[in-house]
């Protein structure tokens, strides 16, 4: 996503780090394109990519061309877009709910979207999987939100608890679907649920890209308001925020991006939690810079994780397993490190 960093009014000694965050996804993508079971030289990657735009770079009819353009490039783009959706939604939801410990996975959006997808695959093949994912993802976060909203302000632990409950419920519903469908469909649901980019094609890239564009563009434009909204409902209102409207736009936008990503790549957890935290540690909590940098960081992280998933063993490990292996210890680290700073006053 093209973005011009324009906070020139602030003296930032960490300009270098910001620049790095914006370059990182492209560097990761380049590495991901030449690493793999079939060896491709780094320069050949550049020649093939260059050849798409400028014909004189075109290396001619080589096998690498098909591998890069038809297999690896859609996969890398899909991973990057999914990472953008998850990290962008994560940083947004953390701000909206004033809670550094939530992400689309913890709030139940992923579980809800996966039920929508499973229903579509298993029982209603004529209903578009993306629309089902969006409806159920949005429904899940709505239930989490209202369950946690006991009296006005939402406090931290009840929100996480509500998310856990909603996730458990929707996961159980997915299990019922798995139990009832025929074995052929079961196999595709199970593999897809694990979260993988192995089946990536250009159609999926367009779907995920549409979700990122439609869902995260309003979030990106409204990013500075997240600072104000994280002050709490009453304060945000007296500061002049149209709270209901703004919150609705941000939650619907995040859910849209995540649901479409889930519909093509399955459930991939923890990215939405980890990436915003890492960026916040490096660059501070101002959402004006945090939102675009988390989105870019999410792309880089996901491409990196998928490259590991592809190359670590002879098999193509589902990338959701890799992010969970990295994410669970990270969550424990946050709890240990932060104490009050992360959990705050409940």
């Amino acid at each position: 996503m093209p973005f011009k960093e324009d906070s020139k009014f602030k003296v930032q000694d960490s300009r270098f780090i910001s620049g790095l965050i914006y370059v990182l996804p492209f560097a990761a993508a380049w590495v991901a394109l030449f690493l793999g079971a079939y060896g491709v030289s780094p320069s050949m990657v550049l020649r093939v990519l260059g050849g798409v735009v400028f014909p004189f770079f075109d290396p001619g009819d080589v096998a690498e061309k098909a591998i890069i353009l038809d297999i690896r490039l859609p996969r890398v783009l899909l991973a990057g877009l999914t990472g953008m959706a998850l990290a962008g939604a994560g940083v947004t939801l953390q701000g909206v709910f004033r809670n550094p410990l939530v992400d689309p996975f913890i709030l139940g959006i992923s579980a809800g979207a996966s039920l929508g997808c499973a229903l579509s695959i298993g029982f209603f093949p004529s209903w578009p999987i993306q629309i089902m994912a969006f409806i159920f993802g949005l429904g899940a976060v709505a239930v989490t939100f209202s369950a946690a909203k006991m009296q006005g302000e939402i406090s931290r632990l009840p929100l996480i608890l509500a998310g856990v409950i909603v996730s458990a419920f929707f996961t159980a519903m997915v299990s019922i679907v798995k139990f009832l469908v025929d074995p052929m469909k079961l196999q595709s649901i199970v593999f897809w649920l694990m979260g993988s980019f192995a089946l990536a094609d250009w159609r999926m890239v367009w779907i995920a890209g549409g979700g990122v564009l439609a869902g995260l563009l309003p979030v990106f434009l409204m990013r500075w308001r997240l600072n104000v909204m994280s002050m709490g409902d009453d304060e945000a209102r007296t500061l002049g925020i149209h709270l209901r409207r703004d919150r609705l736009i941000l939650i619907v936008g995040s859910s849209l991006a995540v649901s479409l990503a889930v519909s093509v790549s399955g459930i991939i957890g923890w990215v939405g939690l980890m990436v915003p935290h890492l960026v916040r540690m490096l660059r501070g909590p101002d959402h004006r810079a945090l939102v675009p940098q988390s989105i870019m960081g999410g792309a880089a992280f996901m491409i990196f994780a998928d490259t590991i998933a592809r190359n670590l063993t002879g098999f193509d490990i589902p990338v959701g397993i890799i992010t969970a292996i990295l994410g669970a210890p990270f969550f424990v680290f946050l709890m240990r490190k932060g104490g009050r700073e992360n959990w705050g006053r409940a």
Partner: protein
Amino acid sequence: MTVKDITFRHSSGQPDVLRGVSFEALPGRIHAILGPNGSGKTTLFKCLTGLWRPQRGEVFYNGQNLLAFSGPARARLIAVVPQEHEPPFPYSVEDMVLMGRAAHVDAFAVPSRRDYETAEETMRVLGIDHLRDKAYTRISGGERQLALVARALAQQTPILLLDEPTSHLDFRHQLQVLKKVRWIAREKNLTVLMTLHDPNLALLFADQVVALNEGGIQAHGPADEVITEAMLARVYGVEVTVLDNNGIKVVSPRVEK
């Protein structure tokens, strides 16, 4: 600003929390709202800022009814300094003050250079510009309170409401914050309303006092006329002696030793 006949109850059937509260507040003056816990001070503030909708009553400013205004429009007229608190993320002081510009920044935009300059100027006015890049979570309670005052000033409203601005502060910082608030009220001709617990601070810093109890106004007028032994006995149920210290009145509670 004219507050007229504000009446509020949480839901029908429950007793009124505010019963026909009316008073007038003047620009350039500080109005202290005194009253025991549960007297309706907080409720009055929530009604004035539009967080709660009173069943009856109006708030007029320059002939317009403030209660009819929408969120951002009202936020350009009334700024609130909440009690000092801890935000979920360690924003810098500058980021905090900049939030005061929210009502002036379009929903799909980020603050402009002018907004940054306004924030910077209010920090300078309050003498906290050296804290600009410090984390709000890492400064003292007095500094946080001043940052919140700066944020409210950045909102550039004619009316300023302060919710117990001294409650978390030590003696020195209480005086420092209130001195700055009084100076700014005079300088910028702001209508200032603040809730206070200590009648002595009201005597030192307020021009007008509104004494609330059980949802109604018990006394209203110039601070040194309103704060009397009889009023404090009636409103708070405590026995005090009001002394005269070279023209400044001092409230001294009678406590057995």
